[in-house]
């Protein structure tokens, strides 16, 4: 199925930066469907609707769903698998035989959906999920450092987890924002500032609202557009 699955983090980051319109903009340029799993839908809509603080942002997301810019996939069909994978992920690392529950079922729900529908990509900003998939030894180093204890890795579980998600590709909200930028979503802003300045400001805004992009990566991306400025 031609689809991109979204975790809640990127949608929240877009909402907090008033950038939700990027979603329909990119949806028009993608030959597939944007999906949310049940758990992500709940986090985006049900939780904030009970709080005044994010209720309006949540309504904006609800509007996108209502207009089918992003659709909810009923992932209750995968609930058993989600439970198994959650248990698997949360038994990879342990301290003194006590498992470290590093991921919650909501995050796994999105991973399981993306894998089962053979999605083109999963959009996830969240550091722990991405590290577990892409650089588990680095996650191990963080856990060791922060707990200041010996953290054991269950290598069989880790291998099993990776086998499960071996074909899954990860992208982040910053990549989507940069693609939107290159497709002229932000062209009006460039009347008033350079590409380099704009990209740097945009990426910092997203970093400060939860996207796990490093300062080093921001410099790399900013330089890309500085160079393109120079080429005219």
């Amino acid at each position, binding site marked *: 199925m031609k689809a991109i699955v979204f975790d809640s983090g990127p949608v929240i980051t877009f909402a907090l930066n008033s950038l939700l319109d990027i979603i329909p903009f990119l949806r028009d340029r993608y030959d597939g469907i944007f999906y949310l799993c049940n758990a992500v839908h709940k986090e985006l809509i049900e939780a904030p609707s009970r709080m005044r*603080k994010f209720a309006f942002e949540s309504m904006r997301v609800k509007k996108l769903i209502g207009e089918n810019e992003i659709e909810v996939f009923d992932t209750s069909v995968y609930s058993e698998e989600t439970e198994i994978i959650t248990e698997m992920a949360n038994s990879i690392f342990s*301290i003194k035989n006590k498992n470290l529950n590093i991921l919650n079922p909501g995050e796994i729900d999105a991973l399981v959906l993306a894998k089962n529908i053979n999605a083109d990509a999963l959009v996830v900003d969240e550091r722990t999920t991405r590290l577990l998939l892409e*650089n588990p030894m680095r*996650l191990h180093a963080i856990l060791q450092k922060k707990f200041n204890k010996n953290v054991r890795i269950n290598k069989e579980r880790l291998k099993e987890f990776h086998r499960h998600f071996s074909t899954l590709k*990860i992208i982040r909200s910053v990549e989507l924002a940069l693609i939107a930028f290159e497709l002229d979503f932000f062209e009006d802003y460039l009347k008033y500032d350079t590409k380099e300045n704009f990209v740097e400001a945009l990426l910092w805004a997203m970093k*400060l*609202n*939860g996207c796990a992009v*490093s300062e080093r990566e921001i410099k790399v991306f900013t330089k890309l557009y500085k160079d393109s400025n120079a080429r005219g």
Partner: protein
Amino acid sequence: MVYTMDTELKDNMLFVLKNVRELLRSDHIRISELKRLSNQLMEDVSLMHNKDSISISVLVYSLYKIFSKNSNISREALLKYLDDAIRSIDNQTIFRTRLKKLFDQIKKYDKELGVTILQTIRHAQVKKGLKVYEHGMSIGQAAEIMGVSRWDILEYLGDFKIDDEGYYDRVDARQRLSFAKGLFR
């Protein structure tokens, strides 16, 4: 119900409660020490998701914020409830009732301080959630443990220095961007 918790966990909670009590007994409260004590249980919170460790961390951070605003507010009732909580730690039901009394007491400071203590407590929950995240748990997990939403955590994440720069470089940023671009026309 007798509390059959892990001994180390109990010792850690007692350590924090007793030290907070000592601070509140002193003539001049060392505010920075209150803040430090609020982080003391974060390993236990991250590893065991223990409800009482979570409550104590939030409570102590809330006290830090309250006494930062006004170190002269009355401490008599707080000290009494702290003593009660420390004495009852081996009985989970009574211990939790006494922790609740501590929270109820600090909610009474609303008028005195002109702040919404509920907001202070919520802020404390979010800050401790960020600490759980810093320990390597996911944002979703941190939010769930602390009883807040991912929206709350993400909104504050930018103000919180996470000591993990350079941990994302396994997948080259340009490669990821290039792959993402290929998905769109």
